[in-house]
């Protein structure tokens, strides 16, 4: 137990901060994923075949290639790509992006592919009459979506989004390979310096279980909130 003490003697405070880091990366990645989904879901549902194709390539490639490979692509290729873009604007110095940004982006793109599929599914399962009724009421396009489609979509999407959240949370453990100090990396460091890997990795597992357990509780509440009236 003294291994988990806070302060200089134990790893308690380090692991606590690492847990917050895992949460921060997961939430950032999830939000990045939502913005990707906001772009690609309309493309998926578009009437134009070429737009469908772009969105399909995105979701198929990301869901068919291991997360670790995507992370390596961003880890090794991320700063190169940014430097390339910067050089087009005449900036030629070396740019290093930090592990948090690379990691959240890599996981965000993965999570975005899953979210896109979830949103597509939930929009498609809304009754056609709802779209027509919204149109007939003479609402603006924005209001049609914001006031009528979105609330119904969220109700259908939340159970599946909670799966996406679980996947995203667990995927963040892979960012440890880039050196970002989240739960996994911190446990690796602690295990290395105390020579007690069994304890620290098991503790990491408990932390992840705690995170998934607590977030499920929270999501269940949301689910109840959004299914009022059903």
């Amino acid at each position, binding site marked *: 137990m003294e291994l988990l003490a806070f302060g200089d003697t134990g790893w308690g405070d380090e692991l606590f901060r690492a847990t917050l880091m895992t949460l921060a990366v997961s939430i950032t990645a999830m939000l990045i994923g939502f913005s990707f989904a906001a772009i690609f879901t309309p493309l998926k549902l578009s009437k134009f075949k070429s737009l469908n194709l772009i969105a399909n390539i995105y979701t*198929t*490639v990301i*869901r*068919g*290639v*291991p*997360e*670790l*490979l995507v992370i*390596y*692509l961003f880890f*090794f*290729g991320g700063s*190169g790509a940014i430097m390339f873009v910067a050089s087009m604007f005449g900036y030629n110095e070396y740019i290093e992006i930090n592990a948090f940004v690379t990691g959240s982006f890599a996981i965000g793109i993965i999570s975005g592919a899953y979210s896109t599929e979830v949103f597509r599914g939930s929009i498609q399962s809304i009754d056609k009459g709802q779209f027509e009724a919204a149109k007939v009421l003479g609402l603006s396009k924005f209001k049609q979506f914001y006031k009528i489609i979105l609330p119904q979509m969220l109700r259908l999407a939340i159970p599946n989004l909670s799966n996406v959240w*679980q996947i995203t949370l*667990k*995927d963040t*453990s*892979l960012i*440890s*390979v880039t050196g970002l100090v989240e739960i*996994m990396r911190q*446990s*690796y460091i602690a*295990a290395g310096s105390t*020579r*007690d*890997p*069994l*304890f620290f*990795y*098991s503790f*990491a*597992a408990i932390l*992840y*279980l705690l995170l*998934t*357990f607590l977030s499920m509780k929270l999501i269940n509440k949301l689910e109840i909130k959004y299914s009022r009236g059903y």
Partner: protein
Amino acid sequence: MDFELMINSFPKLLNATVVTLKLLSVSLIVGLFIGLLFAILRLNKNDFINKFAYGYSYVFRGTPLLVQIFIIYFGLGQIEYLRSTFLWVILKEPYWCAIIAFALNTGAYTSEILRSAFQTIKPGIIEAGQSLGISSKIIFYKIQIPIAIRQSLPAYGNEIILMMKGTSLASTVTIMDLTGVAKYIISTTFKPIEVFIVAGGIYLFMTFIIHNVIKFLEKKYSFN
């Protein structure tokens, strides 16, 4: 774009694909047995037994695969007692540690898939078997299991693909699988995009094959 590198790295990556496929197939076979066992335990009326099976699947589905591999590979070796048993022959090899972790992980997901398949079998089918005077053992093997397998094909196909992606984590415990070799080539040539296209292409090809095989099986064993 360095096409020469892409062509040169292709055979190396293809060789590594064999390792990936070996990891995948062995852990799927072992995982299927674990999954079937725990699905049956989940349906047991004894509260202790089905809680135990639920706990197993909850823990393995709620923690990242990476933690599971690290606990087995780095953690178990720490227990002095294990080092003196025959188990150490297996546990000192990263290859077997990875397979144990993968099999336990996919077993947890498979048990959930099979459990829900068993639960959706209509009671009428079992009753029909009983009224024909078939013993409950034969009803289970000849009626419930085939129907459950058919029911769970689509979900199990997804699980195979997820597991295929999961085998990439073997590279974190020094196994040179497809991702391991890809990372090695990236870190020696600093050409991530080219290598990603080739390695990712191989993964996508495998996904494509698995997807279509499952689709074919679904059609072949459909009820209509």
